């Protein structure tokens, strides 16, 4: 049986309010910056998906649109592409991290 050092590791949760922590700090120096980050880039915003406005409905336990039309999940088959907009962070394919 696997033993975990801390319950945080055994019950993974997303960060409290945002999937990716905010930072206004820029890159550090070449001897302190992780090498792989020299290949980091701002994703292609031309492929970003605009998600329709929606609210969570406690009755159906699903999101519903603010206007008439199909349920929001029916309108969004496309993956959300990271576009540099911090209000539109991408889903993390790697799952919850903290």
């Amino acid at each position, binding site marked *: 049986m696997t033993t975990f050092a801390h319950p945080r590791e055994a019950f993974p*949760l997303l960060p*409290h309010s945002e999937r990716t922590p*905010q930072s206004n*700090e820029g890159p550090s120096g070449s001897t302190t910056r*992780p090498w792989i980050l020299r290949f980091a880039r701002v994703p292609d915003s031309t492929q970003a998906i605009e998600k329709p406005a929606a609210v969570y409905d406690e009755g159906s336990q699903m999101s519903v649109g603010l206007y008439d039309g199909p349920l929001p999940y029916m309108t969004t088959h496309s993956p959300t592409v990271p576009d540099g*907009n911090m209000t539109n962070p991408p889903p993390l*394919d*790697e799952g919850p991290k903290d």
Partner: protein
Amino acid sequence: MPTILVIAARDDWPTDRVVNVLTNRGVRVFRMDTADFPQQAILAGRIGTRRGWSGRLANSHRAVELSDIEAVYFRAPHQFRLTDGMSKAEQRFAAAQARAGFGGVISALDARWVNHPAAMTRAEYKPIQLATARECGLTIPPTLVTNDPDAVRAFAEDTPGPIICKPVASPVFIEGNELKTVYTRRLSPHDLVDLRGIDTTAHLFQAWIEKAYEVRLTIAGDRLLAAEVHARSARGHEDWRSDYGSLIYHRTDTPADVAEGVHRLMGRLDLRFAALDFVVSPSGAWTFLEANPCGQWDWIQGATGLPIAEAIADELQGVPT
């Protein structure tokens, strides 16, 4: 009354699709986000020698008896939202108590899990995935994890063709108020001249596998739902996440030997859902790259019609496949 507990972020719309399938089938669903606890959700769990965990989990709209929970869909919920006014020390204390208490009781439920959080956490580690995949008979790329520049040079020399680097953990971060990501990169000799910064943390390098296309293999229970991913651009060919617009998808079948290895892998990792990435060579050989225990799947269903939400619902309901 038998109930399926769904623990997910409220704005996770693919989860809506699963909830909708279950609801249409007449299944009772109790959905919550862990952020609801402790302010909007109440847990009162009891256990004794004669009976396992029982009691009540409730929010302002519905309640469920813990012993009625037959299955749990656990998908990237948020952290607990605590009462305003706590000091930082109180917040840390309360969050740890919530995690071990709420998380502990939920984790202890004797239910069908998709996926159990502890299994998912363990399976997130790429080195564990690779080791397990290898032991299960899947082909994997030669891989190096290191913070040693000399080891990188040696790996590049030992590898007949090009090598790639990719993050070992999440590729996304915000820097200078700008969202950035790191895709898989096929390295040129020039890239390897200056290795300053390798020693700052762990880095992952792999042999580049020549490919005709890739496969996103989504597994739900025992069902394998495979989609070919064809990239029509150079950057999409290197990492398809970098150019979704260039991609086309086709349903495909999983070769029998790969399927057997995948079933063994899922069993060893104790997962009932995962999105696996494979490279398929021009000769048709499949090479395992990684497993995403909480991987995205909705766009694959949209592009191919593969019934992934239905397969997840089947697994939660215990429908034999």
